[in-house]
């Protein structure tokens, strides 16, 4: 009913896209390389008197070896347990005293630490963070307590969480040789057998200025902050890093399937296809962009294809999610996950997913669907600038997987050039059984179930 109006609006949005979407980022962002190999990226944003300070190490669970899975994340915990100068727990107390918020996180690709502070406190947190880049010093007793905490974290997030168990099995099935097959938190048995020295070895191997990128966003003067960064981080000595083996996953030769039985009520189904990612130096490869847009065409808004057909029309699934990350250090999956509707089976859910994909492969997608997604991408470029922390996150994740922050705008521009035919082409080429892994959660009743009360 409002289609004319809508079309006029799209065109307007799409005619003037990048002038308002990507403005200013390059001018406000400053990159330097210290002589010890540490990279600094500063994003100026003077809207409020706050800053985010992050240090990113290119060492994640994909750099671990068998028997020591989870060590990247365990070390992340141990980084709060003291240095030669700062006692255990003191780091957090000092950050708290200046009003800071802090935390850290580990992924398959990297480990990152951050503090958010009022701008006059930035020097203090830089000093603290630079100190633990090379002076970490924890005792065995601290390790023994903290490894218990990490096991509690695994129990909370994985052991008692059927969705996580399913995902863990999916990854371990999809990949044979890639270290992406291991969970970031590590296998429980590896955690039980981890020693303080495993964490120390990890630290000695990977924590070095030449394996780190510092990202600072917010209300800062870039020249001034470079001096502070040089003073503190500049003092840390460079190290030779361990050799990283490529560990390229061999091509998959047919469907793989795995089943997980765990306490739950709804059956879940995950279908994951091996797909390419965007490679550094090959920014013009259209396929990753097309896959990213395909994700949104299937699941990017409330009336996107899978939600519309599977949830609302066929009522065969209760929820649907589609994910794909075009940038990462390791191999990528195009993942569709659903939970079955009451009275429907995973077989029915799978048939419906396959129908929806067949339809797309045969008939392609509408120009209007793709435009809708592109408008969303453009408006998100404005919205993301509301968060100072979010800007530092975007720069850090991009840098860690081998791209430059300077590529971000180019990647987004490139996305706008993708055609419906290119989206259809990647669906046809990659969403095929040869590279498919299927994981099914078969729900089990709990032994002791007191949960049905109150109905």
């Amino acid at each position, binding site marked *: *009913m*409002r289609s004319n109006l*809508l079309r006029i*609006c*799209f065109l*307007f*949005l799409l005619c003037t896209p990048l002038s*308002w979407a990507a403005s200013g980022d390059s001018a406000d962002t400053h990159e330097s390389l210290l002589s010890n190999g540490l990279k600094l990226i500063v994003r100026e944003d003077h*809207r*409020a*008197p*706050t800053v985010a300070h992050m240090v990113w190490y290119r060492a994640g669970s994909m750099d671990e070896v068998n028997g020591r899975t989870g060590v990247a994340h365990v070390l992340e915990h141990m980084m*709060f347990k003291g240095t030669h100068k700062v006692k255990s*727990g003191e780091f*957090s107390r000092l950050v*708290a*005293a*200046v*009003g*800071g*918020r802090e935390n850290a996180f580990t992924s398959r690709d990297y480990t990152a630490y951050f503090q*958010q*502070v*009022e701008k*006059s406190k930035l020097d203090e947190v830089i000093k603290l963070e630079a100190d633990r880049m090379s002076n970490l010093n924890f005792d065995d007793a601290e390790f*023994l307590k903290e490894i218990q*905490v990490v*096991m*509690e*974290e695994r*129990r*909370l997030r994985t*052991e*008692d969480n059927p969705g996580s168990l399913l995902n863990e099995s999916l990854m371990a099935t999809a990949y044979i040789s890639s270290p992406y097959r291991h969970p970031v938190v590590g296998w429980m048995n590896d955690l039980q057998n981890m020693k303080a020295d495993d964490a120390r070895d990890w630290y000695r191997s990977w924590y070095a200025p030449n394996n780190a990128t510092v990202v600072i966003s917010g209300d800062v003067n870039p020249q001034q902050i470079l001096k502070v960064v040089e003073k503190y981080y500049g003092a840390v000595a460079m190290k030779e890093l361990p050799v990283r083996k490529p560990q390229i996953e061999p091509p998959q030769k047919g469907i793989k399937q795995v089943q997980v039985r765990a*306490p739950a009520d709804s059956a879940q189904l995950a279908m994951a296809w091996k797909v390419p990612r965007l490679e550094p130096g090959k920014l013009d490869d259209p396929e990753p962009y097309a896959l990213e847009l395909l994700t949104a065409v299937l699941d990017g*808004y*409330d*009336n996107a294809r899978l939600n*519309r057909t599977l949830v*609302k029309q066929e*009522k065969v699934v*209760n*929820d649907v999610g589609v994910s794909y990350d075009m940038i990462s250090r390791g191999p990528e999956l195009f993942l569709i996950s659903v939970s079955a*509707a*009451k009275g429907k089976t995973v077989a029915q859910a799978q048939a419906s997913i396959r129908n929806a994909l067949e339809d797309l492969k045969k008939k392609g997608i509408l120009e209007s669907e793709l435009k*809708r*997604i592109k*408008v*969303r991408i453009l*408006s998100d470029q*404005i919205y993301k*600038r*509301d968060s*100072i922390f979010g800007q530092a996150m975007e720069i850090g994740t991009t840098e860690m997987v081998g791209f430059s922050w300077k590529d971000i705008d180019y990647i987004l521009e490139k996305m706008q050039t993708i055609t419906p035919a290119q989206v259809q082409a990647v669906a046809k080429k990659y969403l095929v059984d040869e590279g498919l892994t299927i994981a099914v959660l078969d729900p089990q009743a*709990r032994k002791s*179930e*007191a*949960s049905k009360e*109150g*109905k």
Partner: protein
Amino acid sequence: MNALKNSILVCLITFGYFATAHAILPIEKLDSFKGSKGYLVQTKALPMVDIEVSIDAGDRFDPSGKSGLADMVAGLMNYGVKGDQGILSEAQIADEIADLGANISLSVSGERAILRIRSLSRKDLRDRAVKLAAAMLSLPTYEAKIVEREKQRIITNLLEAETKPEFVLERRFTKSIYGNYPLGNTPTVKSVAAVSAKDLIQFHQQFYRSDRMIVSIVGDVDRAQANEIVQTLLQMIPQSGNPIAKLPELQRSPVEPLGQREIQIPFDSQQAHIAMGMTAVTRSNPDYFPLLVGNYVLGGGGFVSRLMAEVREKRGLAYSVSSYFAPGKDTGIFKAGLQTKSDQAAMALEVMSSTIAKFITDGPTPSELLAAKSNLINGYPLRIDNNRKLLDNVSSIAWNDLPLDTMEIWTKQVEAVTLEQVSAAFQKYLAMDRMKIVVLGAQNK
């Protein structure tokens, strides 16, 4: 930068930790429209605007036996509306939101339903997003077929949730604290099944009235434009209606013997989940600041709280442990919680209880108080450093009837808190012999 320049009020912070003075953006009260209230903070740096409508139509108004109704009334607003040009289907609404590059979200808490719009501030886009939201607020269709579909989805989600330790714990804890107060009953399969499309329409008519709504706006619009937004949003909504029965008072958690306050739920999970708490205060209570500062020391201060030190740092018993006050317009609650390996439940509960008990009796030490104030005051800029956080603040100030200069005087109020006030407030509102305790999945060896 422009945003800061536009600010009139400059707040000089006298507390010793601050080196710099900076401006806190003022909240402007908008023209009253049809009995509603409206507030605006202008920030011009980004071409975007965030708009929130709070509706006094939270879960506490769920009729007996129909828990989940308030959630559905808000959650189904975007599944069909009667617009000025006829019916707009759920698909058309979703497409329109996507085409505008806007976000519209709906949520419901115990006290209020919330509709939020994030849009680019360009007038044509913004106008359409606001018009669409206005139709959702005032003219949802609640078509029977869609209501049935969504009920089934909610029921499926509830059945799944009932297999999760955190959900089962939370439901039981809520019942334990709120008792027969309307918030004590959370949605169940039965209560959701009892809701009909007619119930939705009726609830909407009864509670979605402009005199029960507050609009908060943050972003790149001026006062005149903001007034226009409020008027467009509320234009088609009736101003008032039949009187709504007053809710009962939430009774303070009574002194009870442990056996009556503590509930053990058998549950076959690897971890036991533990919650402890009682009724507490409203946000407008003058003791809010002593409780806020004190709770930072007890269990609010991330890695440096006493609960964190005792449970995690010293004993490695849990990954996360914390405590908080959740004050609202009405009396809210205090709650502490943790998860631990199921055979450690008794020990972890003991550590948590004794830590809280000791804090109520002795209060913080002078250095703990100083550290808490230092964190809260120095960290205040982080609570208001983007549009979304500003909207959270404006919305809370408006909903809780707080003074419009709340953001300007916040750090002063923290600074003024004394050791005696913290101790007195904790002793006045909390008591170990009133604490409800729920332990799920403990395995006693």
